[in-house]
């Protein structure tokens, strides 16, 4: 049965698909994909958000789910998602290739993403990047030999008032300095997840020298009389 399917696939592949996907279909045998039982509940939850005739809207959330499960998105996962949302696999593939968060290949145990955009650079992101590269012995885009860390450069992560920002396994580490990033990396090396958020004395993006607004507990304000 499997060889019959393989022959059918081979025929369609030779006429329709590109060489890269052609070889990948056979890799699919080695890397079969299915969502876990728990994740299938999440699949149902995701699909329920959209009108039943608009299942394609679930493609991005399902790609995230597959990546959270596997650490990257294998092509077999894209085939599975295409069958769930009932669309051609090329549609899922096209969406997958457009967005920077999705990873086509396995990565290290911990993914370090450092922002080097303007606000972070102005607050010393270059020094942080150098410190990470020196400590781990890898450049941007590389993975350490023990497969512990992958280092990536990313664009603005939306936390500019607490720059520099380093995102590790999706956790935001803000107000980072060379001392704090070394300590954070030591924790991750032991598979301990250090406390995320600001690594300074402030809790968030209030002025570090002390709040200038909202110093006392707020209360409900007077409502207009015509309500």
């Amino acid at each position, binding site marked *: 049965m499997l060889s019959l399917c393989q022959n059918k696939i081979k025929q369609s592949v030779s006429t329709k698909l590109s060489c890269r996907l052609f070889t990948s279909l056979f890799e699919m045998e080695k890397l079969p994909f299915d969502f876990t039982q728990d994740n299938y509940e999440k699949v149902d939850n995701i699909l329920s*958000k*959209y*009108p039943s005739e*608009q299942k*394609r*809207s*679930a493609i*991005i*959330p399902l790609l*995230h789910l597959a990546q959270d499960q596997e650490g990257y998105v294998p092509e077999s996962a894209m085939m599975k998602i295409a069958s769930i*949302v009932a*669309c051609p696999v090329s*549609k899922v593939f096209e*969406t997958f290739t*457009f*967005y*920077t*968060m999705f990873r086509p290949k396995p990565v290290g145990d911990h993914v370090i993403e450092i922002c*080097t*955009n*303007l*606000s972070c*650079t*102005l*607050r010393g992101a270059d020094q942080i990047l150098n410190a990470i590269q020196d400590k781990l012995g890898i450049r941007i885009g590389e993975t350490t030999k023990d497969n512990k860390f992958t280092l990536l450069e*990313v*664009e*603005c*992560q*939306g*936390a*500019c*008032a*607490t*720059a520099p920002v380093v*995102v590790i396994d*999706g*956790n*935001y580490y803000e107000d980072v300095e060379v001392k704090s990033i070394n300590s954070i990396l030591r924790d991750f090396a032991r598979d301990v997840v250090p406390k995320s958020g600001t690594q300074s004395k402030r*809790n*968030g*993006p*209030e*002025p*570090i020298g002390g*709040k*200038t*607004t*909202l*110093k*006392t*507990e*707020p*209360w*409900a*304000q*007077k*409502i*207009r009389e015509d*309500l």
Partner: protein
Amino acid sequence: MLSTFLKQPIGQERLVSSLVTKRFYGGLNDNNRIFTNLYGDYDSSVTGAMKRGDWQQTKNIISKGKEWIISEIKKSGIRGRGGAGFPTGLKWSFMPKNDPRPSYLVINADEGEPGTCKDRQILLNDPQKLVEGCLLSGYALGAKASYIYVRGEFKKEIASLQSAIDQAYEHNLIGKNACGSGYDFDIHVHPGAGAYVCGEETALIESLEGSTGKPRIKPPFPPQFGLWGCPTNVNNVETISSCPTILRRGSSWYNSFGRKNNHGTKIFSISGHVNNPCVVEEEMSIPLKTLIEKHAGGVRGGWDNLLAVIPGGSSCPVLPKNICDNVLMDYDDLEKNNSSFGTGAIIVMDKSTDIIKSIARLSKFYAHESCGQCTPCREGTIWVKSLMDKIVEGKGTKKDLKLLESLITAVKGNTICALGDAAVLPIEGLLRHFRKEVELRLID
């Protein structure tokens, strides 16, 4: 006594004007702040939010009717806080009447403009304001449901928002018969996946539909053909989150802040070379210098150490110190000074900054983020980046500079969306105010 004073010849005008109260902008009191849990010091749950005034009289606001709500928002003068600054009430009135298709409210939480980190604070610490805002705005638009598109990197923020939505459902504030008003309204969170271009409203809609984030040609605009081909209004988080307070306290209250056509309050994100980078809610039209010195601890090394400021996020042309001395933080004054208000994300650069390298870093950003759909942006951003890199390294020539200038004309206004304009506007600002520095860096 007064007439004697007024007859004095020298300094008369000054005397007369001092008798008339001059309006200074920027002294917003905490009791006029909308986002009272901006820093997350207090309980962000439904209970905590209600204590701070959220969800009060929501049913009564709904019973006032759609026209009343839209009229109030129009009268308040609020303009879109996501960067474009389009009058919100006017945008809402573009929704078609008596259309058989279902309508949708889409919230743009794709906060990707470099320098901007304000919506994040609302999602983390004051999410009930957004939930209530979605309900009231959705009702005014006749929307069936709201989809909140949050950038994929904001995992903690997505969890916080989802928890807020779940709590609102549990308390029957949204869902069937929301707040006992008879109106059914659902809210869903949808994640992005790392694409700045998805901050553009039609690219966001494409992304929500499961496609690549390539903007659509406008017209038709989203109110005519939006999500799944239905009437849609796409609004920023801060805009919608401000609406419940505006409706509760009155449009005239909101209108009392800021200059004409620039009303209200704004969450500013201040980053870069200041002593206390922060996020703060202040009055519109506050002078830039006052904002930086009052809340961000001033420029590193003192105000005279200031080189330049990008006033509204990376897409806004840079302003040199002499303009920063007096410019007001509102749409009109910044436009008058050949820049723009954008998202109110202030990036401060002191005299230690290599301004050309800083702008070149922004060029790298836009080249990375171009969706590739239209030629002027796809090709133009790559050319701008490579020319800027060449100039930064000291290998640029006069011919390269001329080519860079011609690229500004070739790209600006000739692209499907504003990303093309955003990519060349920083270069325009650099050449307008720092041309000498650029020319000094050239080989010839």
